[in-house]
């Protein structure tokens, strides 16, 4: 049969992200995918010209709704390093706690959406029910559900009291039990395996060559996680990246599933080691110089390039997000699969187009 081009997105019933793929199909098999981006470009990097570096924290938090805390952490790290600010240990631990809570709620949201992509509506709702507890923790400790804006240059704005710590640990027990109860449904089910195992395979070599990031990379057997850079308080926490070797959609979802449980462990460790002391230090002056900082977002490596010249306004902020890195691997995954599997494979990289286009 002759080649046909089928447009996929930017509005699609199973894909919440505004990405457009032109799928070149022959019979039911996808030969090639041509991406088109730019539907949600907001020009946030340009805002650095009219917002000073303190206000930019609130701007970069809005790059992505779901990992906003980690964007702010990455940005603050850069500015703090440029200004040689010594961040208090307690603030570093608090950043880890809020960062890991963000990772958990992002992964739980994704696990739900992934289940929804292959028509598993009840698991979708179950995961989101668990996620609601994380949102409650964020709301109670930081004052907002999603964009918590707790980070400032020099530390954090809010503290977590010992009572709140106990409450968080108690809630996390419930979250862990809930996730474990869904483990077999999500990972051992015949129907789920049928839709995910061996679908959208990305080999280890391909993953490295195409520059994949985050769970997409770790799902292909590469143990690379930016938390290994020991930023924030990760130098004192017991941490090992989660790796799966299959390289298919199943491996990627398994990486995220296991990372959710790992985040619970990291939060428990951080709370048990939470040192006493101040949560921020006053910052004076303006940053000068240029720097690249990296943190691990739920979707992978997040990179910030900051250039400052001693003024209130930064010269340049360049944000490179993990989904941007994961688009070329996605195109490699989509080649050769059935058309019906495309939504599942596209979702398996956890695309965040809002991040990508900034």
């Amino acid at each position: 049969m002759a080649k046909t081009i089928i447009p996929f997105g930017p509005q699609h019933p199973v894909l919440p992200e505004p990405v457009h793929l032109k799928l070149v199909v022959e019979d039911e098999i996808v030969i090639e995918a041509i991406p088109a981006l730019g539907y949600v470009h907001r020009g946030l990097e340009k805002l650095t010209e009219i917002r000073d570096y303190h206000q930019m924290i609130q701007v970069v938090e809005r790059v992505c709704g779901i990992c906003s805390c980690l964007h702010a952490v990455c940005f603050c790290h850069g500015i703090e390093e440029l200004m040689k600010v010594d961040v208090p240990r307690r603030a570093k631990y608090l950043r880890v706690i809020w960062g890991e809570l963000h990772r958990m709620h992002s992964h739980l949201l994704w696990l739900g959406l992934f289940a929804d992509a292959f028509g598993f509506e009840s698991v979708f709702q179950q995961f989101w029910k668990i996620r609601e507890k994380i949102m409650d923790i964020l709301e109670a400790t930081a004052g907002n559900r999603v964009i918590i804006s707790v980070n400032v240059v020099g530390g954090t704005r809010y503290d977590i009291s010992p009572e709140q710590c106990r409450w968080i640990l108690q809630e996390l027990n419930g979250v862990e039990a809930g996730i474990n109860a869904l483990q077999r449904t999500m990972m051992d089910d015949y129907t789920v395996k049928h839709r995910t195992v061996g679908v959208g395979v990305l080999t280890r070599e391909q993953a490295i060559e195409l520059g994949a990031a985050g769970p997409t990379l770790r799902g292909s057997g590469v143990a690379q996680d930016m938390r290994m850079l020991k930023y924030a308080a990760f130098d004192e926490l017991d941490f090992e990246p989660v790796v799966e070797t299959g390289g298919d959609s199943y491996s990627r979802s398994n990486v995220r599933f296991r990372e959710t449980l790992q985040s619970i462990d990291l939060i428990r460790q951080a709370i048990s080691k939470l040192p006493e002391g101040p949560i921020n230090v006053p910052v004076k002056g303006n940053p000068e110089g240029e720097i690249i900082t990296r943190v691990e977002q739920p979707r992978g490596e997040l990179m910030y390039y900051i250039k400052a010249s001693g003024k209130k306004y930064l010269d340049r902020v360049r944000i490179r997000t993990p989904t941007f890195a994961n688009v070329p691997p996605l195109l490699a995954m989509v080649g050769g699969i059935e058309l019906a599997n495309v939504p599942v494979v596209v979702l398996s990289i956890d695309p965040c187009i809002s991040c990508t286009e900034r």
Partner: protein
Amino acid sequence: MLFMTPNVIKNFLSKKATRLYPFEVREPFEGYRGELVNDIDGCIFCGMCSKKCPSQCITVDRTTGIWECDPYACIYCSICVEACPTKCLSMNNVHRKPAATKSMYTLQGVPPKPKKKAADTAEDKPAKEDK
């Protein structure tokens, strides 16, 4: 197979996970950042809030004594509350209700009297120039 069964039974026996909003509203958390409130009597119209605001939703007019906030541009970060020198700004823990039309939160206060020193120096300046 049937891995969902324990979950299904548990959900049957436990109470609902959802609420019948708006008939049943959850108690807001203590630290929740809701609406921005200004106690205008304590306001000195220094304009610190409008300078620090990342979304620039606050306008302060020193001369007329009008303090205005666009609650639909506000991002509920409470940076202004922390920056306020007189602590007249605060955030309550009730979230803003959805509305069909946008409105401004405008407050009329007593504008600060112009400083005497500033007036004096203004008068002095032309005298200096003469010399």
